């Protein structure tokens, strides 16, 4: 807000005044540092030893050997539990992703391009459940799955994760704006059945929205903590995000009673943090273009 305040004093043409520019630059710099410092530091921390982390300048890198040692310690933890957790995360996320797509793409299509009595009602219901934070339902879902005996089963996280009304909403918007009804009507006149219309005409045009729904489903489910935390009591079934708490519990700095030979040192924990977000980070980097530029491109009028 300071930036805007000061820029009132700037000449009328805009942010061209020297002081205004300097101030805005300063504010931007502060925020860039705020967003970037923790990440840079985290990456550097993975190359240090526990002692170096405390003694070395925070922004000096450690050694490559440090990374190797931390890596070895991390993957030796509980006979390779970290590997299991990553595999679990992958299974849950991909499983949920597939189910999400199977459920939401046809649903969004039907809501957008077909006519039926409950259409309006289902749309409203979708909006309501979409705005309901998913964590609010975790405990009730636990009770529900408990009665059908699914607790501890991978399905207990995959199924609730596949419920993704936001994906339906996105698909709905996409189909209702990007595919002309005439096209479908023409296909129907050609004698295509409803399913063929969807499969032959709509689906091939839906690649961008499938990618988008997949992206959001993946990121959200990979980072989900509360749901698996409650549903999966056994450490063998943890996804990596919940597994991190196990590592945290083995770090003496954060759990005094774990001070022992098998304990996890801080840099190893830092490495675990990096490893835990690596898949999401990669997806982020690769989809940056279509997310940040691509999706806003329609409105870019520069």
């Amino acid at each position: 807000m300071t930036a805007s305040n000061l820029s009132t004093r700037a000449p009328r043409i805009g942010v061209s005044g020297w002081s205004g520019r300097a101030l805005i630059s300063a504010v931007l710099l502060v925020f860039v540092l705020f967003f970037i410092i923790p990440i840079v530091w985290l990456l550097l921390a993975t190359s240090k030893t526990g002692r170096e982390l405390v003694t070395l300048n925070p922004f000096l890198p450690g050694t490559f050997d440090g990374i190797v040692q931390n890596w070895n310690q991390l993957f030796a933890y509980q006979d390779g539990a970290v590997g299991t957790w990553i595999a679990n995360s992958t299974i849950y996320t991909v499983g949920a992703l597939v189910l999400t797509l199977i459920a939401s793409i046809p649903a969004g299509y039907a809501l957008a391009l077909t006519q039926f009595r409950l259409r309006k009602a289902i749309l409203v219901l979708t909006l309501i459940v979409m705005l309901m934070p998913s964590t609010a339902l975790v405990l009730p879902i636990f009770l529900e799955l408990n009665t059908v005996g699914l607790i501890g089963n991978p399905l207990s996280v995959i199924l609730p994760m596949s419920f993704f009304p936001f994906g339906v909403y996105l698909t709905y918007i996409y189909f209702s704006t990007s595919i002309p009804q005439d096209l479908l009507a023409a296909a129907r006149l050609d004698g295509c059945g409803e399913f063929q219309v969807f499969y032959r005409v709509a689906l091939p045009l839906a690649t961008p929205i499938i990618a988008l729904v997949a992206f959001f489903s993946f990121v959200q489910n990979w980072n989900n903590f509360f749901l698996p935390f409650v549903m999966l009591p056994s450490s063998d079934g943890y996804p990596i995000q919940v597994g991190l708490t196990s590592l945290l519990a083995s770090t003496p700095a954060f759990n005094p009673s774990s001070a022992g030979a098998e304990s996890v040192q801080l840099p190893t924990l830092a490495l675990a943090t990096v490893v835990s977000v690596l898949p999401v980070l990669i997806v982020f980097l690769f989809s940056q273009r279509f997310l940040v530029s691509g999706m806003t491109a329609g409105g870019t009028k520069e």
Partner: protein
Amino acid sequence: MSQFTEKTQPRRRVALSLAATAATALVLITAGCSSSGSTSAGEFGFPEAKQDTSATITVWVDSDRQAVVDAFEAAHPEIKVDAVSYDGSANGSNSFRTKMQLFDRSGSGWPDVVFSTQNNDAAWASQKTNGKQAFAAQLDGGLIEKDTLSNFTEGSLDPCTVDGKVYCLRNDLAQSVMWYDKTLLDQFGYAVPTTWEEYEDLGKKVAAEHPGYIIGTAGDAWTPEVFFWGSKCQANDVTGPREVTVNTTSDECTRAATMLDTLRENGTVPNVSVFTPEFLQQYTGKVLMLQGPAWYAGAIFNNPNSLNVPAGELGVGAPLPWKGEDPVTGNVGGGTWFISSHSANLEAAKAFAEFATTADDYQVEKAPGYPAYAPAAEKWIAKQESSGYFATPLTALTEAGSQIWSGWGAGVFSQEAIWAKTITPAIASGESIEELLPKWQEAIKNQAQVDGYTVK
């Protein structure tokens, strides 16, 4: 009952088989026709799962107890162990209880043996919850031999005992003693204090003559157990299965609080946890004395990742009395081992729990703390003394083992968590412990009531 294949105890095996056969017969008679159930009434005082002596046992340990698993696997290669490390339920995380309740709900997945750093787990593990079988196997109903149980140091199984039945084995005793750096004390010309009053005076002297040196810490969640338990403060007087008496404003509590406040203010008992990097940075080589449990020796002093005090410097003094009273002391944890009543391989689970608590391979050779199992404790003391690490004999430790004040119980709620939540941050923002005593009492009462206790 072919599952009892181990050859070492033939007589017991026969007796067990007979008992089990009888029990099975009884079940068959009472149940009429159905014999498909997978549990039997069990010969040890709890319903047993179908046994399979070749089944892998799952063992939950904290990262410190990983050494037990390694030692056990070396000694018993025939038993397959799947070790899972968790936080040991430390500091009020209650993860042990939470997870067992989740397994109760899912109806499977219980580990066979669990190590807990806490003393308050038998209080819930021995009880049925919502009609579900109690997690802990009763141990003195025949599962563990009477001889073994009676060899534990007297009183050490108290936290494991509910309604006269034993539900866990104590890993180590965590009697609080006075650790001191003999070399430094001699160098400064100080005598080892013999009462809390002398201790306080010493603190004042150190603050004046050698600022920067410390004679204790008050930053950990077990501060109440070290200082208030040892002062007979009635903060945790568990009088019945669901009854507790709390009075933290008595003289016994106030005297400990004012002493701590004085020493905190002059910097000789800082509000720093001994496990923080901060503690190491500021106080390595400056720890004159440290009031704390037996396991401090291995976890803090003789640990290259911690203070790393060289051999020949560390001495141990008996618990301090208040002037005119007999010495009593507190206790900080001292882990406990539980066997699951759901275990499908009770024999292996029992072997593991017994090994962990009684075998020389672990308790004497590797354990950082004072073994609760008396024969192991004797050997442990002898080994520690002969190692030449300590500057004094360790008789004070043995003595302290029998001086733990019995007026501090083991309820379901964690005193450490209550202290950490209400007192630690308040001290950090400058309040005095003495002023906080009523708030502490209120917090204990509230938490106890939430857990179903009647508070007096």
